[in-house]
């Protein structure tokens, strides 16, 4: 507690980022420190982040101290510790969970384990201070693609997900195929702005009628086949056109299914989350389709779309408010479901 504000320390180490944040009253970001290795590894042409838990272990204390000092608070001011306990890499998750348990024990404050996916959705509470459930959420990132009905703060009902590759993964892999490099999402987004999205006929995969699931793994094969055919025919490959056409095939299905889900469940708002929520064309198309039905679309700023500790703090705060507590036996759950 400082200046009458309830302070939550949020810790996120589920994958590549070591991230810690201090959030006031579950809504206001006082600090958001993220240590990532993406910059270092881009030079190796796509072999990305150091994911070893050892790296998290080396960084975690510095990042916690950085988050406290940036927020201008001390560890004694913290009222609650929230930490991601799944899904993710077990070794990586364990570092965050162990750090959170130690702080909770040493400072005698409550501990709440947070589902990483709930955290992504909660990032919107930090951006839109007036936002409250109910709403429909579209969570799209490098590792996840889910449509989630959110009737209240502590319920997340997954109604659809990917059956193979995540949307962000499709971007990364196709970017590699067409030589755009890493990270694929921003690179494809940029190239697509200069391309013709009707140039190459990528198949839209809708699956069975009424399904909110996705399948994106066929797109990389389609991109490969297209490139081979063009090369064999001696035609010049227009990377921007391939990027734009591929991107359209992904975002059209995402946008259409998210809007259908909102309509079926009677939700007036769609909340976007995860790294792919920053994609320009997805934002444009979903706003267009939702707008036609009077549905509002919200999303966090790019900094809160990617993995961060603030979203974990916010999700922990609302879980805590509804009475949730984790014990010192909290363990990492790598395959945690929604």
């Amino acid at each position: 507690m400082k200046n009458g504000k309830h302070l939550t320390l949020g810790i996120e180490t589920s994958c590549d980022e070591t991230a810690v944040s201090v959030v006031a009253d579950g809504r206001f970001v006082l600090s958001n420190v993220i240590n990532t290795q993406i910059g270092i590894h881009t030079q190796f042409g796509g072999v990305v982040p150091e994911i070893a838990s050892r790296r998290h272990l080396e960084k975690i204390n510095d990042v916690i101290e950085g988050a406290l000092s940036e927020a201008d608070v001390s560890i004694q001011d913290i009222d609650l510790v929230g930490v991601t306990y799944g899904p993710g890499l077990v070794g990586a998750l364990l570092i965050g969970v162990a750090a959170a348990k130690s702080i909770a024990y040493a400072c005698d404050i409550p501990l709440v384990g947070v589902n990483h996916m709930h955290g992504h959705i909660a990032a919107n509470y930090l951006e839109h201070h007036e936002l409250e459930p109910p709403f429909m959420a579209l969570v799209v990132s490098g590792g996840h693609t889910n449509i989630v009905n959110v009737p209240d703060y502590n319920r997340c009902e997954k109604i659809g997900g990917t059956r193979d590759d995540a949307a962000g993964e499709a971007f990364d892999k196709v970017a590699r195929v067409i030589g755009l490099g890493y990270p694929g999402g921003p690179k494809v987004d940029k190239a697509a702005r200069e391309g013709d999205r009707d140039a190459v006929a990528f198949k839209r995969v809708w699956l069975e009628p009424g399904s909110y699931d996705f399948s994106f793994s066929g797109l990389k094969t389609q991109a490969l086949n297209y490139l081979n055919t063009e090369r064999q025919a001696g035609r010049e490959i227009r990377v921007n056109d391939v990027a734009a056409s591929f991107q359209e095939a992904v975002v059209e299905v995402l946008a259409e299914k998210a809007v259908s889900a909102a309509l079926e469940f009677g939700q007036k708002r769609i909340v976007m989350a995860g790294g792919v929520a920053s994609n320009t064309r997805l934002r444009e198309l979903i706003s267009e389709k939702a707008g036609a039905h009077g549905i509002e679309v919200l999303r966090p700023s790019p900094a809160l779309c990617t993995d961060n500790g603030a979203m974990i703090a916010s999700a922990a705060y609302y879980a805590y408010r509804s009475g949730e507590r984790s014990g010192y036996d909290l363990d990492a759950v790598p395959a945690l479901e929604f």
Partner: protein
Amino acid sequence: MKDIEKGNFIIDTEAGTRALGLSIADAAEPGDIIALIGDLGTGKTALTKYIAEGLGIKEEVISPTFTIVREYRSGRLPLFHFDVYRLSGPEEFIDAGAEDYLEDSGLSVIEWADIVADALPADALLVNIEYAEDDKRRIMII
């Protein structure tokens, strides 16, 4: 993995991939390791889905690229599905806790296994998938 036919062959349909996946699942014993090698889009994850089906796994097998490994425990044997594409080499594979899985009594399937070859035991079953003409696949099992 004693009862699996080694050698080279061509498969040309999804049904062929499924048949191979099911036969691998049938032959799998606790602690077996399958090293999958093949380019993007050759069907490594698709083959793993059929291995999972053969083991009687109920959950949807989705790409492990992001999390490096996914576990499935609803079948005859636990399945540990790895994608080590993002790892820099065997050291990082071991750092990520791979040995705990490989020594466990499940079936480990490792995509992009060439990256971590030095960390794999000599008796791992090597399945190499390459593109062949007319969208077929050339499979080499060693």
